[in-house]
């Protein structure tokens, strides 16, 4: 579904490459988490997938990105947006309407969805995000977290084949963040949607993603299943990423020769590891 070949990109106003020789293949339906330190190139990678780079941010673009066979550099942003739904990092800028309902309708109207489908899509997406009660609220009266949910719901309503989300839980509390990831994972499973989500909370990614990419200095530093990536605790720390505490605990036990089991991704895994050590 997503093929990235030898992609390098330098913003016109930048001196260094924002992305360096990135090559990836993301099959259809995979849930991919992307994380890394600030300025590592995570957002630029998402821009390359949804076509914002090079269409909106010009610069030196090398290599190729293909979405379902369409070269992003040669396909118009409008045509790409039929395939890729994007939630940007700056939520305030993403909002184009003053009322939640209008925000939901914007993409559906533009893409010409049949009118008898629109109401169902809006109602379903709002209910999925748990924000049906916000339908008639003014956007300016919403909290940051509510705006993020509205932005995600507005994209989900269009049911794109690929979802690209740049820190969709940045302003959400832990429970709401988990709720958003629950929904994204369930949604992707039901619709066979490919999801690429940039997220700082690696514990969330390790719990939900099929695959984690660690981006460092514009390149993909680590790429693998969550358990495999979390096994590289030292490399993660060097990249400015803290492992989940459950993983750190098991890694310490392992370093002392007390535990030899699999990498712990969550509290349940850690409890099992500690019980094994005590036994």
């Amino acid at each position, binding site marked *: 579904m997503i093929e990235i070949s030898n992609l390098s990109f330098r913003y016109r106003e930048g001196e260094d490459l924002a992305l360096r020789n990135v090559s990836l293949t993301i099959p259809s339906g995979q849930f991919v988490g992307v994380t890394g330190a600030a300025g590592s190139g995570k957002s630029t990678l998402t821009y390359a997938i*949804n*076509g*914002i780079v090079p269409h*909106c941010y010009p610069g030196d673009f090398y290599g190729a990105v293909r979405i379902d066979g369409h070269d992003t550099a040669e396909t118009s*942003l*409008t045509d*790409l*947006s*039929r395939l*890729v739904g*994007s939630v*940007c990092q*700056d939520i*305030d*800028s*993403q*909002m*184009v*309407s*003053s*009322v939640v309902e*209008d925000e939901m*309708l*914007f*993409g*559906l*109207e*533009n*893409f*010409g969805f049949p*009118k008898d489908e*629109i109401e169902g899509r809006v109602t379903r997406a709002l209910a999925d995000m748990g924000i049906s009660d916000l339908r*008639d609220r*003014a*956007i*300016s*009266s919403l909290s940051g977290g509510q705006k993020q949910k509205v932005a995600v719901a*507005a994209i989900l309503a*269009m049911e794109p084949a690929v979802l690209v989300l740049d820190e969709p839980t940045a302003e959400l509390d832990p429970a709401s963040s988990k709720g958003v990831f629950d929904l994204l994972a369930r949604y992707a499973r039901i619709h066979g949607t490919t999801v690429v989500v940039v997220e700082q909370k690696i514990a969330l990614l390790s719990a939900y993603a099929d695959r984690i990419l660690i981006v460092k200095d514009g390149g993909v530093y680590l790429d693998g299943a969550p358990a495999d990536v979390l096994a590289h605790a030292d490399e993660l720390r060097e990249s400015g990423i803290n492992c989940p505490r459950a993983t750190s605990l098991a890694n310490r036990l392992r370093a002392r020769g007390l535990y030899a089991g699999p990498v712990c991704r969550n509290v349940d895994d850690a409890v099992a590891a500690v019980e094994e050590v005590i036994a």
Partner: protein
Amino acid sequence: MKGFLEYVPGDSLLHKMNPVAKLAVSLLIIFACFITQSFVALIAILVLDYAFAAHCKMMPQTVGLTKAVAGFSAILALIALFTVPAGAVLAPLPWGYIGTGSILAAVRIVLRLVACAIPLFLTFYVTKINDISNALVKVCHVPYRYAFVFSSTVHFIPVFMNDMSGIMEAQTARGVEFDGGFAKKVRLMVPLCVPLLVSSVRKTNSAAIAAEVRGFNLRTRASGYKEYPFAGRDVCALALACALFAASFLV
């Protein structure tokens, strides 16, 4: 009071009217205000404005608007007072005089500006901005691009106001004192317009990108989900507004 041009929900007749009809009625009332020279007609329009405001439960906001517009128009009224020599002489001036006609001209300016500001004010507060722009596209065939510019402008006003207050709070935290007279406040705020402008340009660019990746360029007149048919009440309101407009030529 909600934010600037933020929709006030309700179920009054004004809320239910077609957005284009509301705009047209407002514009006809405004034209009538500028055409008529009669005090009685202006006062009648003002009474009508307040009746509308009371009907859609916007009285406190309308009183606030009246004070603001009256304050602004007082400047114009003063200019008229000193520059329109008319009627019986009350006070001679080196370049003319202040007469009874000058006072009437000044009062007429205040009345006219207040009477014509209220209908548009009410229209914008009892109608969702998207409904106004979508109805203009559907009914008046205004190109969507222009309607979107209008609705985006209104949408971004509270965003930029928040940005400005954020910048001011940051400056206050660094010891800048915004308390004090109007002139001092303006002097301190002028340099802050540069970061606000930078942030506004960046946000506008991001919004344009966000709109484009959601199919903005595919939009046609038929794309709008909502329809805006004219009902009997819209036709009646337009007919009455036309009658008022015609009457303004006669009185």
